[in-house]
């Protein structure tokens, strides 16, 4: 029984680490602000959730689980609200997405964001 818990905890930590690393590569490589926000959204919800679930399975008893669940719930509620406010502020202040800019120019040149 303990072996199953350990294996599931390790796999959750591995999946969370992989998602966070892919988000880190995405925030460096993607060409636009909105696409970078997509990469960050993946790490903020699923990566953080997987790592916190892995930590819960490491020590499944006591007050530690309650604190980790509190952090998980706060992350799940806070991160989409912050992403929504950020995207809305950027779009309201005339930060044009990349596809619209290319359509307006009608060319194939790559615009620097």
């Amino acid at each position, binding site marked *: 029984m303990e072996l199953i818990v350990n294996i599931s*905890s*390790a796999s959750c*930590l*591995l999946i*969370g*680490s*992989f998602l*966070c*690393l892919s*988000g*880190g*590569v995405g*925030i*460096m490589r993607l060409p636009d*602000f909105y696409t*970078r*926000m997509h990469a*960050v959204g993946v*790490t*903020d919800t699923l990566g*953080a959730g997987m*790592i*916190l679930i*892995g*930590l819960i399975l*490491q*020590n499944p008893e006591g007050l*530690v689980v309650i*604190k*980790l669940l*509190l*952090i998980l719930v*706060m*992350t799940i509620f*806070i*991160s989409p*609200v*912050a*992403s929504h*406010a*950020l995207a809305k*502020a*950027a779009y*309201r*202040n*005339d*930060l*044009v997405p990349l596809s619209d800019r290319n359509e307006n120019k009608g060319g194939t040149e790559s615009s*620097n*964001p």
Partner: protein
Amino acid sequence: MLIAATLAILVVMILAIIRGFVGPTLYDRILAVNMFGTKTVLLISLLGFVMGRPEFLDIAIVYALINFISIIGVLHFSDSAVFRHDPHDTGSTKKES
């Protein structure tokens, strides 16, 4: 496995802070700071488990709240004219009034 996850989070934090320094627009920097704050919460939680001191989770909760308040506060001030983003000026983010 805990140490591997901690190293992965450290690498992601370095990438995020590089994007925060070189980000072309203001919103890229805010996004990078937001990602850095979330990864700080995860790093403190993981370090508490690595060093065997789960009391670090209280600090992680405080960091999550500070991150949210700071992001919303900066975005609230981004409506004002000082922070107004000029879409043609991609080099600097602050517009001289």
